C-alpha cells in the first residue's frame, strides 16, 4: 500500500488522544489526589488511606464486597455450570437458554425495579403485592422486610438480583465449552461403569476448569465494581454499602475529593491482579481457537 511515514499515526492518533485524556491522565491525577485533602489543596500523606481502612462505613463496604465476591461468584458460576450440563440433555434447550439470558439485556436499574417489586413489603394482615412475601404469607409466615433485615437477608437479596442477571452469561460461556468436549470421553467413562455423578466430577469438570476460571475471574472483577443495584435499591442504607457506592457518596454527597480518590485507587488495586489474570487467560484462549 502507498503509505507515507506519518500515515499510521493519523489512524491511531484519535484513539491515543482520547485514551490519554480519558484514562491515562485522570488515573495519574486521581492517584495524586488521594494524597491530598478534601479540596485537593493540602498534602495529607496517607491520611485518606488510614481513614478508608478504619472508618466503619468503609469497613462495612469491604465486608459486603467480600460477601458479593464469594456468594455472587459461586452462585453464578455453579448455576451456569449446572444449566450448561443439564440443558444439553433436553430438546427445549434453546428456549430455556433464551429465558435465562434475557436479564443480560436489561439495565441493572431495570432489574433493580423488577426485584424491588418482588421484595415489596406490606405489614401483616394487608394483601401482599410482592411475590416473595405473598409466598411467605401463603406458607403461614410473617411478611419480611427483605431489603431492611440486616445484615444478611438484605445483602443476600441484593446479590440475588446480580445472580439473576449474570447466570445467563456464565451458562452461555460454559455451555459452549461443554459442547466442545468430545462425546467419546464421556461415553468411554460410562461404558467403564462410571455413574453420571462420577462423569461430571472426573471427566467434565476437569476439562471445563480453564473456562470456569475465566468466567469466575470475570465475575469477580465485575462484582468488585458493583454499583447500580445497590445505588437504586438501598443506596447503601441498612448496612448494604459497597465500595463503589461509598466512592460516589464521598464525592457527591460529602464533596471530599481526597477520600473519593483514595477509594477509587483501592478499587484499582483490588481489580488489577484479577483483571491481568483474566486478560492473559482470554488471550491464551483466543490463541488456541
Amino acid at each position: 500500500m502507498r503509505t507515507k511515514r506519518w500515515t499510521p499515526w493519523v489512524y491511531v492518533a484519535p484513539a491515543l488522544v482520547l485514551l490519554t485524556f480519558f484514562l491515562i491522565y485522570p488515573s495519574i491525577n486521581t492517584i495524586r489526589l488521594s494524597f491530598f485533602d478534601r479540596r485537593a489543596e493540602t498534602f495529607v500523606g496517607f491520611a485518606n488511606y488510614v481513614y478508608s481502612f478504619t472508618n466503619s462505613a468503609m469497613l462495612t463496604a469491604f465486608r459486603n464486597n467480600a460477601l458479593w465476591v464469594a456468594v455472587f461468584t459461586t452462585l453464578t458460576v455453579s448455576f451456569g455450570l449446572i444449566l450448561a450440563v443439564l440443558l444439553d440433555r433436553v430438546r427445549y434447550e434453546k428456549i430455556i437458554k433464551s429465558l435465562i439470558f434475557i436479564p443480560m439485556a436489561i439495565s441493572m436499574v431495570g432489574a433493580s425495579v423488577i426485584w424491588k417489586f418482588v421484595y415489596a413489603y406490606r405489614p401483616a394482615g394487608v394483601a401482599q403485592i410482592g411475590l416473595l412475601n405473598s409466598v411467605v404469607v401463603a406458607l403461614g409466615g410473617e411478611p419480611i422486610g427483605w431489603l431492611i433485615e440486616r445484615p444478611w437477608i438484605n445483602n443476600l437479596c441484593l446479590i440475588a438480583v446480580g445472580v439473576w442477571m449474570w447466570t445467563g452469561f456464565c451458562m452461555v460461556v460454559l455451555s459452549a465449552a461443554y459442547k466442545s468436549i468430545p462425546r467419546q470421553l464421556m461415553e468411554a467413562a460410562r461404558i467403564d461403569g462410571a455413574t453420571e455423578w462420577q462423569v461430571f466430577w472426573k471427566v467434565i469438570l476437569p476439562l471445563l476448569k480453564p473456562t470456569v476460571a475465566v468466567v469466575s475471574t470475570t465475575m469477580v472483577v465485575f462484582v468488585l465494581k458493583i454499583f447500580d443495584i445497590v445505588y437504586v435499591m438501598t443506596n447503601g442504607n441498612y448496612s448494604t454499602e459497597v465500595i463503589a457506592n461509598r466512592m460516589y457518596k464521598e464525592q457527591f454527597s460529602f464533596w471530599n475529593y481526597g477520600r473519593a480518590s483514595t477509594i477509587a485507587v483501592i478499587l484499582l488495586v483490588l481489580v488489577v491482579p484479577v483483571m491481568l489474570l483474566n486478560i492473559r487467560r482470554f488471550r491464551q484462549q483466543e490463541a488456541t481457537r
Partner: protein
Amino acid sequence: MHQATKILTRSPLHLVLIFLALIWTLPTAGLLITSLRPPQDVAQSGWWTVLAHPFNFTQYTLQNYDSVLTKEGMGRAFLNSLAITVPATVLPVLIASFAAYAFAWMKFPGRQFLFVIVVALLVIPLQMTFIPILSIFARIRIAGTFPAVWLAHTGYGLPLTVYLLHNFIAGLPRDLFDSAAIDGASSLTAFFKIVLPLSVPAIASVVIFQSLWVWNDLLVALIYLGGSPNVGPITLKIANLVGSRGQNWELLTAAAFVSMALPLVIFFSLQRYFVRGILAGSLKG
C-alpha cells in the same frame, strides 16, 4: 414401557429445569403485567391475581404508559437515551476501527508497545477517572451536556473495541492487502473497501455491545449529567423515580418496561450477534 420409564427417570431433570426457568421469568412477567394494570388494582392485589381470568381484558390498561411517557417525562428521557447512545456507539467504533486497522496492518515504531498499552488500559475502573475529568468538563463548561457523555463513553469504550476489532482485522488474509497495494489502492481505500465490509460480523457484535452498555449505563450518566434532568437518560430517570415514586408500582413498572423495550427487541432480532457481543464485552473495565 421402555419409553415410559425413560420419561419417569428423567422427570427430576425436567422439573429442575422448568423450575429454574420459572424463577428466571416470573419477576419480569410480574413487571409487565403490573405495568398494564390500573393503579387501584396494583395497590390492592398481587399481579398474579389477573391469571385467574387472563383473557378478561377489562383488567388491563395502557394508562400507566401514557402517564410515564407524558407526565413523568419518560418520553423525553427515552429520546435523551437515544441521543446519547447513537453517537456514543458510532464514535468509538469508528475511531477504534481506524486504530485497529493501523495496529494490525501498518508498520510504525512503537506499534507493539502502544497496542499493549491500549489493552492494558482495560484494567482501569472508571471510578479512577471521574474526578479529574469532571473538573475539566466543568472548566470548559460541557459538564451536563450530551457531548460530555459522548466523549466519555468513547474514551471508556476504546480499549475493548480496539482490542476486539484488532483481533478480527489482524485475522483477515494478507493477500487481500497485497493485491490492493498492487492495484495502487491507498490505505484509506483499503480501509473502506476491504477492512470495513469484511469486518461486519465483528463490528456488529461490538456495536451491539457498546450500544447496550451505553443504553443501560447509569454511572457515567450520573457523574456527567447527574445535575441536569433535561438531558438525563432513561436509567437516570428511573433511578430518580424509585426515590420519588417508590410506592407507585404501576408507574415504576411501566417506566422500567419502557427502558427494557429496545434492548429486548435487539435481543430477539439479533440474538446470535447479541450473545457474541455480550461475551466479548465481558472484559470491559
